């Protein structure tokens, strides 16, 4: 018996290594030439079929659940393309009616009928309470910092939470999947990763020695594209690029939404970019140095990173030089779970007047690329990626956008964000991604109080100096104007001062509104 085991083991190992070797060589060949056999896509399609078959199997146990789930699927139209999938796939618990009521009240869109102060207060207090409880149950922000929920189980134990009842059939599928992933996929991927890393660093250093600038550039491009493709295959990424005619060719700043550390890798499979980041130590630092030998990247020292002006200057220098590569920047500043786009920091929008937006949408059914840096370390994250089925991503290159006459950086950033959200089918949010780690700023809280105060003045007999027309204008004010107004209001102002400032601001707004109706709207 021992002999048989030895024999089988011997045979397996005899076939195993060459098998892995051939695949690695094949991949290197494909990456160098930029071809693809379409195998990953076919396997991905097969896997999705298996998952859907598997999820039909789990609907046996509870009749009610099956009805609810099919009901949900009927309510939301089955998306034809990946583009349409967005946060409606999250399982909703409540309908947030009271939060909408509060929004309307604060924005002044409720019916104007003067009522007694007390009844207004009572009314509003109750609405605030209910809206508050609603936000405890379901809110727009915290859900963006944890992985997206899946419609059906994808046979990875990490996503098993939502799916309670697992039948024996599914268990067997899971075991098979586990073996396939860990015994076949992982070794291939690890080899590819090492090869990719080696090729990137070695070739980059070698290319650095080439004297002729244009040959250097061409070599760097081929080398980087090849290495990045090897990397992307080492995670089994299936990437589809759309609208490639809008790709940035000669410098400029490219802007994209951020989901994972692999965003850069995926984008680099199609185009070469100059990277921006903090200089790290250790392995990452070594990679940064090797990359810099072949091309110009912008690596900051830790102290420099805090000096925003220095950062802007270096970036501006880079952008102004036409021989340098386009820069890639993620203005959200942190990883978001790819169901929404959060506030874009205005820094990069101040440097150049032309921006090349890129929208990235991951399909999390085969593997969720979102990195929750509060829960996972970088190493854990990489391991999770290596042991997933695949990473699927759609990339849309949007036509370049330029800053309009009189548009400030914040408005420009917001416009670009809106375009990216629309292209990727993501929810557009104004909340700051920094809320992942930080608390809401006191300014935002004070703003809500001001809005509420305005409402009280309108609805009650507290003060009568603002007319109905003014109220209309206040109601229809654009968000920037509202922010402008609030900038002028000071915490220490008393009621009269507030009324004075609002009254003097309104004629300006009124003029902008009439002008705005004739030209293109700012928002």
């Amino acid at each position, binding site marked *: 018996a021992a002999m048989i085991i030895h024999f089988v083991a011997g045979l397996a190992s005899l076939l195993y290594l060459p098998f892995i070797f051939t695949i690695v060589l094949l991949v290197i060949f494909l990456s160098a030439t930029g071809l693809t056999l379409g195998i990953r896509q076919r396997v991905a399609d097969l896997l999705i079929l298996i998952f859907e078959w598997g999820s039909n199997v789990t609907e046996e146990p509870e009749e009610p659940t099956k009805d609810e789930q099919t009901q949900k699927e009927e309510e939301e139209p089955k998306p034809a393309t990946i583009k349409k999938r967005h946060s409606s796939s999250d399982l909703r618990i409540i309908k947030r009616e009271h939060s909408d009521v509060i929004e309307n009240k604060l924005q002044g869109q409720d019916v104007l009928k003067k009522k007694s102060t007390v009844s207004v207060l009572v009314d509003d207090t109750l609405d605030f309470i*209910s809206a508050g409880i609603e936000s405890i149950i379901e809110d727009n922000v915290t859900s963006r910092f944890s992985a997206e929920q899946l419609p059906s189980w994808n046979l990875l134990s990490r996503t098993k939470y939502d799916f309670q009842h697992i039948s024996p059939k599914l268990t067997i599928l899971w075991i098979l999947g586990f073996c396939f992933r860990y015994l076949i996929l992982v070794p291939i991927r690890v080899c590819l990763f090492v090869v990719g890393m080696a090729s990137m660093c070695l070739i980059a250093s070698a290319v650095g020695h080439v004297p002729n600038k244009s040959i250097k550039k061409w070599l760097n491009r081929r080398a980087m594209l090849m290495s990045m493709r090897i990397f992307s295959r080492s995670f089994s990424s299936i990437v589809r690029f759309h609208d490639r005619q809008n790709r940035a060719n000669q410098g400029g700043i490219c802007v994209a939404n951020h989901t994972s550390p692999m965003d850069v890798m995926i984008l680099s499979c199609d185009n070469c970019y100059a990277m921006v980041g903090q200089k790290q130590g250790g392995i990452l630092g070594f990679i940064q140095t090797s990359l810099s030998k072949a091309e110009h990247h912008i690596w900051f020292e830790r102290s420099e990173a805090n000096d925003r002006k220095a950062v802007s200057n270096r970036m501006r220098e880079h952008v102004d030089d036409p021989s340098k590569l386009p820069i890639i920047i993620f203005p959200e500043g942190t990883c978001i779970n790819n169901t929404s786009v959060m506030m874009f920091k205005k820094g990069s929008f101040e440097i150049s007047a032309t921006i090349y937006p890129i929208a990235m949408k991951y399909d999390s059914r085969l593997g969720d690329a979102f990195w929750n840096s509060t829960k996972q370390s970088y190493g854990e994250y990489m391991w999770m990626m290596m042991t997933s089925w695949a990473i699927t991503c759609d990339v849309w290159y949007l036509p370049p956008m330029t800053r309009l006459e009189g548009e400030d950086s914040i408005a420009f950033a917001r416009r670009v964000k809106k375009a990216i959200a629309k292209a990727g089918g993501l929810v557009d949010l104004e909340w700051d991604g920094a809320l992942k780690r930080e608390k809401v700023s006191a300014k935002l*809280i004070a703003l809500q*109080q001001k809005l509420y105060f305005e409402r009280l003045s309108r609805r009650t007999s507290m003060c009568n100096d603002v007319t109905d027309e003014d109220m209309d204008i206040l109601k229809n004010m654009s968000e920037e104007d509202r922010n402008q107004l609030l900038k002028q209001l000071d915490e220490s102002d008393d009621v009269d001062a507030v009324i004075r400032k609002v009254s003097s601001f309104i004629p300006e707004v009124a003029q902008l509104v009439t002008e705005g109706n004739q030209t293109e709207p700012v928002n």
Partner: protein
Amino acid sequence: LPRSQIGMGNSSSQLPRDDEIETIAHETEFSRSQIVRLHARFVSLDKKGRGFLERDDLKNVPELAVNPLGDRIVDAFFTVGGSYDDGAFASVKRLDFRQFVRVLSFFQPIDRSKKNVHNRRTDKLKFAFIMYDLNKNGYITREEFVVILNSMVGANITSDQLDNITDRTFAEADMAKDGRISFEEFCKAMEKTDIEDKMSIRFLH
């Protein structure tokens, strides 16, 4: 069919056992799938994975942080959540999942076909009352009312106007004219308000 035990993760992020879900469903009249979804929410709020929530966990929800009554709501949440079955209230520091669901059940719409219509309305009013009654002595005093008003409008209002509004409110609500509002007076004052509509949340099935 027993759930298979594949999977890692500490006990607090696993679903509660079937019998626990049964108990909660019986207690609160939430359906099983609603409880499962609420548990997913509980887990996402419980960022450190400890199996209970503290005040800060709720205060960190950005949309609650900008709510002018945010702090008061969290406080009321933890007081009502820690309450005993006989109705006595105790302000607690931690809430487990069962208590979390219990507080939320107060906000279920009132089902007229069920027997406890009156209790539901009283429960909702209790929540609002506790929010005002800072020291939980069963009465809302002028000072406590002023604090609430202050949270809603911040520094935008003069103290004269504050007093003015407080006077008017107490004139209407304080029947006994003892300078404070009891729970009975509170309920009476709210008679005309459609509490059921204002304080019910539409739970999806």
